[in-house]
Structure formats: structure tokens, C-alpha cells
């Protein structure tokens, strides 16, 4: 382990805690918030929490595969956010609201 690295002073457990908390906040938001855009933001939050965890472990383990994966996730997140926003804009034009509770046309 490189004692000069910026991260060496902190134990990995701190990063895990941070990451989990962020993830749970994001999850909570996804499950409860009614505004579609906020929903997307929470999803981004969850994804970034995971990114953080990947980077931490990558540095801690010295394996750069984690950082590689972070790039993948960032790309996917960006794409998905773009598509999601586009869909919300289309729905808004029809339903005149961003409340996800009103998007229930697919019910069985």
C-alpha cells in the first residue's frame, strides 16, 4: 500500500459507510418522491454512490478495473438520464404534470 496516497489516512470502512448512506438516501428518494425529475436525480445519486465505492476499492486494492467500471457506469448513467428526461418531457406534454402517480396506463 502506498503510504503517500491521499486516501491512506482514511480506513476503507469510511468510504463504505458514506457510499451506503448515499445509496440509501437515493433509494429512499426513488421510492417516495412523486416528481419524476426528482426520481431521476435520486437514481443518479444511487449510481454515483456506487461509483464512489468502486473508486475507493480500486484505490484500496490497487486494481484499476474498478475505475474502468466507473467510466462505464458514468456513460450509462448519462445515456439513461437523457432518455429518461426525454420521455418525461413527452409525457408532460400529454398529462400536464410530472407526478409519477398519474403514469398508470399500463395497469393490468
Amino acid at each position: 500500500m502506498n503510504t503517500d496516497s491521499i486516501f491512506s489516512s482514511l480506513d476503507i470502512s469510511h468510504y463504505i459507510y458514506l457510499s451506503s448512506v448515499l445509496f440509501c438516501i437515493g433509494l429512499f428518494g426513488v421510492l417516495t418522491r412523486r416528481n419524476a425529475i426528482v426520481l431521476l436525480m435520486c437514481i443518479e445519486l444511487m449510481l454515483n454512490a456506487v461509483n464512489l465505492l468502486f473508486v475507493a476499492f480500486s484505490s484500496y486494492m490497487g486494481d484499476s478495473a474498478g475505475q474502468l467500471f466507473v467510466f462505464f457506469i458514468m456513460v450509462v448513467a448519462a445515456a439513461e438520464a437523457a432518455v429518461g428526461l426525454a420521455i418525461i418531457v413527452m409525457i408532460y406534454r400529454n398529462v400536464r404534470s410530472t407526478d409519477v402517480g398519474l403514469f398508470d396506463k399500463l395497469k393490468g
Partner: protein
Amino acid sequence: MSTLFLALLLPVFGFLFSGIAGKHLPEKITGWISSLTILGSFVLSIGIFNDVANATSGIAAVGFNFLSVGDVIVDFAIQADRLTSIMMLVITGIGFLIHVYSISYMHGDPGFYKFFAYLNLFVFNMLVLVMGSNFLMLFFGWEGVGLCSYLLIGFWYENESYGKAARKAFIMNRIGDLGLLIGLFLIIANFKSLNYSEVMAAASTGAVSTEVITAICVALFVGAMGKSAQIPLYTWLPDAMAGPTPVSALIHAATMVTAGIYLVVRCNVLFELAPAAQQLILWVGLATSILAALIGLKQNDIKKVLAYSTVSQLGLMFIALGIGAYSAAMFHLITHAFFKALLFLGSGSVIHALGGEQDIRKMGGLKKAMPITYYTFLIGTLAISGMPLFSGFFSKDEILATLFAQNTLVWALTVVSALITGIYMFRVFLVTFHGGFRGTHEQEHHLHESPALITFPLIVLALLSLLGGLINLPELFTQNNAQWLKHWLNPIIGASQESLHHPEHHTEWLLMAIAVGAFVVALLYTRNKYIAKQSIPESDAEMTDLAKLSSNKFYVDELYDKAVVTPTEIIGDTLQKTDDSIFIGAIGGVNKLFGSIANGFKFIQNGKIHYYLLYMVAGIVIIMALNLFR
């Protein structure tokens, strides 16, 4: 021996010929070719008769294997022993006469060719019945004649009541057939064979218990009850008069109904081992004989009287079988065939002359216009009533004499039955032929004797009725040649009849006198009533209650209707309703079940994103938890 097969198959040729080609040929050709095939069989039967005279165990001819499954090994095999050859002569001889008669009687009927086809088919089946060498062949012929009687009784099929009568005959016969079939199964199960020779031989050794043999005999007798119209399966026979008269003559007088008698005589070895069954036969025969005679007393349709007379006479034959007098029963079978066929054909002649009239109250005074019919009918009547020296006298006497020596009570009741027979026969004869003519002017105008093709068979049968007694004269009358029939049949029934008592000669004279006395009483009574007092049977409205009882056949048909037909309908309807509601409805229930299950699960799909997300998260958590706790 190929003559056997030829005799059997000639009628089939006639059947095919008439059925296929007869439609396009003139009546005479079809009729005569059909009749000649029967004549051919008759001639061959004479030859077979001669052959069998020398070979006491009979001659056989084996066909091919019909079934060979486990215990059931049956061949299409025929044989001719002494019993068979006699039956063959009767069947083909009288059959031929009736065919000839029909050429004239059925003249002009659009179904002429069909009639002869059916008649030939009938004779064929009857021959199968008597010529078979195993029980299954018997059954083949048995059902076959039932089938043909269905076709022939319902011959004028456009009339629905005729069709109903035909169906009744077939179905009642089938009820009897079930009994016969059960008898067959019991025989296979216990004797492992259906061949007569093997079964009879095995039975004699006592290998099978009496109870089983009694069961077999009772089952066989049920079959005979159906075919030979005994109580309770007799009501089809009077209704069967719906068929053309030659049909009645052939089927219901001379051949088909005698199948039951043949069966019992054929199985005499078995019946001798089952005294309980014989008692059953005796009492059923007696009851039938008396009941039918009582009904016949008040019938006004000439054919119905003869029908009930047939039932009654068959009862008499069964009485004889019940005491083990097999040759006496056969003797009466033969004489009865002669005079009953004669009477039926004679009545046909009358009906034809009167343009279809069958009610005797509308007849009368036919003596002058139809002398041949008159005299032949008279001979028939005298024969059946027991006029001394006529054939019927000897055959009845044989039965009565043997009866007296075994069971006096039954003998006495049988004499009563004979008395009633005399009364109703003379009644019918006198009312039909004597007195003034009571029909319409139209009919009187057309009254004439029937053509030769009708009168010729009448004359032949009259001669036979007159002289038929010669085949089995009692010892009282002659020393040589006495009881020829009995001796002829000895190889088949000899052992069974050994134990029969026979009355002393002087007792026999006394019995004969009593029988003659009954005959004379009947003659005088009816002569008094119908000639001297010129009374005619009353119209339906004027009958007394007692007379109504008899005239309405003791309401037996109505009883059967309520006891059998109506419950069948009710059961059928009830089952139908059950079927519809429960079984068919059950599937609908299954469908609904699945539907409601599906409905139940519908709530999960409510379309709201949050719920879906929640399910997702919950699922992930559960899986992770499960993994942790593995």
C-alpha cells in the same frame, strides 16, 4: 359334407338375388326363384334325413374358425343329427309353402322383392339356428331370426304403429337374449367349450355342480321365454300380427317361436340335471297356456286370436318339456306347425278376400264363397281342438298322457286349457265362416275364393294336419311303427326320457276319452252359441267387465308400459339433467376457477411505478438475505 352347406346357403343366394336384382325383375321371377331356393333346401333336407337315418350320431361339416380367444374357441360349424334334420324339414317345407303363398298374397306390393329377400334371409337364419353344432351358432341364428322378424313385422314401414310393434318384438327378444348370453357365458366358464357334444358329455359326468347347471338352464330358458313368447315376455307376439300374414305364418307359427323349444330339447341332458329349472318351465308354460287361452277367448281380430293361440300352444309344449317329455313336445311342435300355419294362411286368404278386414264381427257366411278356405280352415280348427284322429289329437294326447303319469294337478289344468282352446277356436271359426255376411256391400261383391297359389298351400297343410299324427301314433293304436318320432329322436333324448312314466294302456284310453270329452263339450257349446243362437261377439261397448278384462289382454301391456317404459324415460331424463348440470357444468366451473385466480393476481399490476420499484427492492433484499443465511 357339402350338402349341408348347400342346404344352408341356398336361401342366402335367394336373399342376395331378390334383394339386388329383384327390383328390376317381374314379380313372378323373383318370387319363384326365392321359393325354389327353399324348395332346393327342402329336397336336400330330405336327402340329409335319409343319411342321418343310418348314422345315428349325425353328420357334421366344419367351416372356419370364427373366434379363438382364450376360453372362447368357436367355429362356424354345422351338423345334422336326427333332431336337426326333422327341424330342417319343417322349416324348409313349410317355408316353401309360405313362399309360394306369398307370391300371390303380396302381389302388387311395391316392396315385393324386399319381402322375398327378407323371407329367404329368415329361413337362412333359422337353418343356422338348428344346424349349428355349438351354442354360438345357435346364438347367431337366434339373433338373426330376431333381426329378420324386425324387418318383416315392420315391413309396411310407413305405418308407425307397425314400426312400434317391430321394435317391441326386437327389444323383448333382446331381453331374452341377455338371458341366453349369460347362459352361454356360464357354459364357457364351466365347460370350457361351446360345442354341444363336449358340453353334453361333460355334463353327464357330473363334473359341474347342480346349482351351476340350474343357473345355466334358467338362463337358457329366459332366452327361450323371449323367443317363444312365454310369460312374461310374450306381449310382442300378438302385436307382431302387424306384419303381413305370411310373416305371421312363418315366423310366429311354424319356425321362429319354436326356437325356444328346440333349444330346450337340444339341451335335454342339461335340463334333466336341473329339476328346479324343469319345474320353472312347467309352471311358466302352464300359466302362459291358460292366460293366453283366456285372452284369446275375447279377441275379435282373427289374427290376434291365432296369435294368442300360438302363445298358448307354446305354453303346452313347454309343459311337456317341463316334465321331460321331449319327444312329445317335438311331436306337438310339428303338428302345431302344420295346423297353425294352415290357420294363419287361411286367415290371410279371408283377409285378402275381404279387402283387408280383420275383425270377425264383420265377417260371416263365407262358406259358400270360399269353399277351399272354409274346409281347410275347418280341418285346422279341428286339428288344434283335438278332434280324434287328426294330428293335433295325437300330439296333445301324448302330452296329456305323459303328464297324467307325472303330475295330476298340472294335467287337470292342462285339460282345462285344452277345453278353452277348443272354445275360442270354434268361436273364431264359426263366427268367421257361418251365419250371414256382416260386411259391407262392397266386400260382398268382391267375395271370391283365393287364387291357386294361395289355396294350394292350404290344401297341402290341411292334408298334413289331417295325417300328421301318423308320425308318432301311440302304442294303443298300432303295434308296429308306434311312436316313430320318439324312436327317431332316441339318440338325442333317449337317456333323458327313460325315467318318464307312462300310464297303463287302460288309463290311457280313459285319458283319451276325457280329452275327447273336452273337445265335444267345446264343440257343442260353441255350436249352440254361435249357430243355434246366431250370436255374434258383442261390440266393444257392450262387453261386461269380465269380458273387458280378457279383451284388453288383462292390461298386461299397460302394466309393462308403466313398470318398464315410464321408469326408463324418467331415468333417462334424470340422468340427462345430471349430466348437463354436473358434468358439463363442471368444466365451466373449472374455467371460472382459473378466471378468479387470475383476477386475484390482478392487483399486483396496478400500473404504479412506486409499487413496482418496491417489489423489485423487496425481491433483491429477500434474495440477499437468503444468500446470507445459506
